[in-house]
């Protein structure tokens, strides 16, 4: 699969490494070149400096041929906007979007985005550790 | 009041009441001061209307309890043989409503009460009193309730 990841934080970089290990072709976008230090030294994918809410950079990252797009920047709204561009403008078959705010996550989920709220998931996991 | 010298004349008092314990003391104080200067006391109760409703919405339980609060103020005034004018105001925020009312009525003094209250473990004045202190054009007399009583 061709995968475009927007946001090279801990999660983005880890995901890029996992996907590459599994044999996928990965491009990672981040506005801050320093973020790419988190990628494994042997990373063979494409790290690209650019804003994933800007179609020009999405195209450079190969959004037109992508089979999947993942938005994992620190900004919920940036993730939401980029994911909607990937889904509705470029018709990427699989689009996943991280949204910290659970209420916003629920809304965009009902609007048809595939969403994950680490706030919700994290709190539930911790609860299970505490009372489970 | 100052004896022998030129005493400042306060004749119009605005007393915002909330239904808390301080009400009796501030209404009584205002009445006593007004009687000396043959002045007038306006007692107002501000209902803060949630933005989910239009400002002029009919907020029934609040209006009813506001009327009770004002009736109590009239009773206190009666006991000092004074008359007060009462009014219920609907506003988005209490502080600005009090200041606007003071300006509109051209009062010379606002007398307001403050419960001694703690929030997150610390003494807390809320938003209304600081706003009025910062923005009222006239002198403000603040009556702070005793410590301990109002702590829930």
């Amino acid at each position, binding site marked *: 699969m061709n995968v475009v990841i927007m946001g090279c934080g801990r999660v983005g970089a880890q995901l890029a490494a996992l996907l590459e290990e599994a044999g996928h072709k990965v491009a990672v976008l981040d506005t801050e070149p320093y973020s790419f230090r988190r990628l494994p030294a042997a990373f063979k994918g494409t790290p690209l400096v650019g804003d994933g*809410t800007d*179609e*020009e950079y999405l195209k450079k990252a190969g959004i037109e041929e992508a089979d999947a797009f993942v938005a994992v920047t620190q900004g919920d*709204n940036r993730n939401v*906007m980029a994911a*909607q561009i990937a889904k509705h403008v470029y018709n990427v078959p699989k689009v996943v979007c991280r949204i910290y*705010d659970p209420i*916003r996550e629920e809304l965009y989920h009902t609007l048809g985005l595939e969403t994950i709220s680490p706030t919700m998931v994290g709190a539930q996991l911790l609860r299970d550790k505490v009372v489970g | 009041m100052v004896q022998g010298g030129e005493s400042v004349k306060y004749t119009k008092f605005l007393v915002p009441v909330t239904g808390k314990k301080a009400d009796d003391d501030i209404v009584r104080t205002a009445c006593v001061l007004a009687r000396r200067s043959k002045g007038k006391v306006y007692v107002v109760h501000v209902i803060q209307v949630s*933005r989910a409703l239009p400002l002029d919405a009919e907020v029934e339980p609040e209006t009813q309890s506001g009327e009770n609060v004002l009736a109590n103020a009239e009773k206190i005034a009666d006991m000092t043989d004074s008359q007060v004018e009462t009014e219920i105001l609907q*506003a988005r925020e209490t502080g600005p409503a009090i200041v606007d009312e003071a300006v509109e009525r051209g009062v010379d003094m606002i007398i307001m009460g403050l419960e001694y209250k703690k929030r997150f473990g610390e003494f807390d004045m809320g938003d209304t009193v600081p706003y009025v202190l910062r923005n009222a054009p006239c002198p403000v007399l603040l009556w702070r309730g005793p410590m301990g009583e109002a702590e829930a």
Partner: protein
Amino acid sequence: MYIIVVGGGKVGYYLSQALLSEGHEVLILEKDAAKCDAICEQLGSVVVRGDGCEARTLAEVGTERADMFIAVTNEDEDNLVACQVAKHKFKVPRTIARINNPKNEALFKKLGIDVTVSSTNLILEHIQEEVPTHPLVHLLTLKGGDLEIVEVKIPPDSSVVGKRMRQIVFPPDSVICLMIGKWGPKVPTGDTILEADAQVVAVTRPEAEGALRAALTE
């Protein structure tokens, strides 16, 4: 009408002032406490501190009874999300978003925002109406007077036609902000190819004007 304005910057402030003077009920949502205080001082109790994208804040300020919802922050993604939350969660009949990057206009429309306002495009429309055939037109002098916005139309016989932006040597302190070609406005990058008859909007210093015109038209 009850109108909610997200963003208490200059645009939000003056917009709200105008709406209030027309007799509308207006509420500004602004994240910054100092801006909230300043607005409250000038316009009264018409501001609430909060995030215009958060459903909880929007519920508190009665978004479900709003007739119009206008998002005018400096961030396009925030304007988009605020309007989408207002529209889909609170069923506000009319949502308006300010767009800072003109590229986003089509996208916002596609994603269901009722009205988009792009100040760049508004300026451009005026330019297109007013531009005579002179190669360089002054559009605006910026604060302080040592920078100006100018527009240059690229003549078909210019040596830059067909070249990429990065191949052209511009005078110092001159920045090409916008190119309006056959396919509409575009924020140029180093790879952008200059087309004949394209209109180029640039910021420059008055003393570099001649050199800029020469760089684009000769």
